[in-house]
């Protein structure tokens, strides 16, 4: 994918003109591209007049930022306390085994990224998995399998 440098520049300028901060600009870029391309960090450090090292320190300190591109479908397993006592470790285990990646990882075909989230606050539904923004509640290892199957099937159909 070719990076739209001018778009990134626009985001950074918009944030820098208001009372925004480096973090706010990076948040915006992360939101748009699901990761922080090296060019973005370079542009941001110049525009906010901070050393590149500081931009990197911010980008690697906060969990919301990623330096690696994400997969097409993003699965977030809630590992909040309520989900934990209701069995989210088994669900996470299952997804890890099935996808053969650790939390934070992306499958080789770039189809899935598996992530954990500390708490979504929808504890009545626990354990929760959010796939591309859609919540699935009361998950079990079996339902996790089904979730993956549904996505891969939809992908296969789209290709045909």
């Amino acid at each position, binding site marked *: 994918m070719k990076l739209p440098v001018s778009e990134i520049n626009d985001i950074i300028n918009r944030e820098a003109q208001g*009372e925004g*901060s*480096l*973090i*706010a600009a*990076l*948040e915006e870029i992360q939101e748009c591209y699901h990761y922080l391309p090296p060019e973005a960090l370079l542009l941001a450090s110049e525009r*906010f007049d901070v050393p590149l090292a*500081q931009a990197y*320190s*911010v980008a690697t*300190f*906060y*969990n*919301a*930022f990623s330096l690696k591109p994400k997969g097409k479908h993003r699965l977030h397993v809630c*590992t*909040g*306390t*309520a989900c*934990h*006592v*209701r*069995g989210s470790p*088994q669900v996470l*285990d*299952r997804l890890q*085994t*099935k996808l053969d990646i650790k939390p934070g990882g992306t499958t080789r075909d770039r189809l899935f990224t598996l992530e954990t*989230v*500390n*708490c*979504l*606050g*929808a*504890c*009545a*539904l*626990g354990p*929760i998995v959010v796939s591309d923004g859609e*919540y699935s*509640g009361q998950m*079990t*290892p*079996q339902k996790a*399998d089904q979730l993956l199957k549904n996505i891969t099937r939809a992908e296969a159909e789209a290709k045909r």
Partner: protein
Amino acid sequence: MNRLESVAEFQEWQAGLAAGWDESKPCLRVCDGTGCRALGSRQVLAGLREELRKTRLDTPIEVVGTGCPGFCECGPLITIYPQRLSYQKIRPDDVPEIVHKTLIGGEIIERLLYTDPQTGQHIHTEPDLPFYQKQKRLVLDFNGRIDPTRIEDYVALGGYTSLAKALATMTPEEVIVEVKASGLRGRGGAGFPAGLKWELCRKNVQAVGAGYIICNADEGDPGAFMDRSVMEGNPHRVIEGMIIGAYAIGARQGYVYIRAEYPLAVENLKIAIQRAEQVGLLGKNILGSGFDFSLGVRLGAGAFVCGEETALMASIEGRIGEPRPRPPYPAESGLWGKPTNINNVETWANIPIIIGQGSQAFAAIGTKKSKGTKIFSVVGKINNTGLVEVPMGITLREVIYDIGGGIPKGKPFKAAQLGGPSGGCVPAAHLDVPIDYESLTALGAIMGSGGMVVTDEDTCMVDFARYFMAFIQEESCGKCGPCRMGTKAMLATLERICAGKGQPGDIEYLLELAEEVKRSSLCGLGQTAPNPVLSTIRYFRDEYEAHILDKICPAKVCKGLITYSVIPDKCTGCMVCLRNCPGNAITGAKKQVHVIDAGQCTRCGMCLSVCKFDAILVQ
């Protein structure tokens, strides 16, 4: 509408809105909070609007998406006004029936009513639901009634009248006196008296000539969502509290630092700020008083440590969220080196109530040293998962059993964990403890920000402690050694115990490490990190010993200490577990009893979750 230029103009506007607010008119109020949305409330809302449009009633019925009333267990929730008929667990296909049977036909659909599990009776109206009976809803009272995106709704119910009162009739000092007299203590966890904090900050703001106020909405405790629901369901109450606080302290700029994981709360907060600016309740010369105050929003980027006030301020300044030693406290040198007052969402939301009703009315609720109400998110092994607001001094038993409806499947209560990764447990023996700051601290738990995770016999307390330590270890910012390395050593020990490799002396080693991490860590995160371990050792030492000495996990949770097997009498030979086993550890043929090979078994729990005949035994 034009900017309001004076208190009198505001009062006129308010009176008009209040006169127009009529809860005796037919109206459907649908919870549109994150919890109900996850359960499908958006589709229900859209469906209701569409069905009503198609039906073309003579008298139109309004459909309002509200904030979270708290009864998440039964979402999506609908309350039908004026009767306040309460329907629960609504699916989109229930919508036509609701419109035609109930709204047009006046008939009650029993299937959608709440059934009291104790008596088996249907409960018709919202106020009669047992879940709300023992609650005292001061902060949450508008949640479930107003549309959080409409400032007019909040004002109609008396919103911003406390601000008008403060600006028109009270000096900043008088506001502080009132907050001090109310006895309000910080709802973020530590319980520092809010009025005292304000007074210290005001003094410094006056000396320096500048200062800030901050709302800490970085609600990071896993299993806690009180602040999110207040922000989502009634953001104006927080904003009003902050404006009053800024007036009292003398700050002209404030920030709300809110978790990015709460998109709906962020959205509603931003809308609310914009509306408050438009009508002149934020900005220059508020209501003609000469007082200026503006409010900005800063999003957290997923770092638990940013809930600590010095780390939070570093993050607002655009740096990494590392804490720094205190003193100086924020009241002396905070954001950009200026005096700063930080309170959390619930604390700010209490301010309009105190100013509106007076400190005496507020102080009449609660116990001698803990005044007012507290919101808890009651989650985990509990029948009525949800958000409850209770008067201080209520017992834990009342919250768990009378409001929470007890433990699922009638299992015995084991412990409630309060205060998340900084907190501790209250075991069954202390169920009658009154909920106030001092009583909870005496038991080794804390009030915390309001997370209450309920556990039953299937929860392993060693694994529970390991869970919190893993969380803290992951979230430790790494600046100071005791927290960075101490939590790592504690986690490694706990992991060893859970894996069945515990050794005699491990408990003592954990206790020693815990004391050291508490004593020598830089900030609150590290200083409180060992609490879940200390608290579980205090009350559940026998479970630790069972893991270490007997190599048994009594709750059958820790993978290294359990085995899965098939109960021959119950197995029908249906092959479902065999087909689903990811490790191919199950053998057997159709209609023959299956066998699990313990060597191959990865203890993933798949067979347990797919077996329809309860034929899998965990030992």
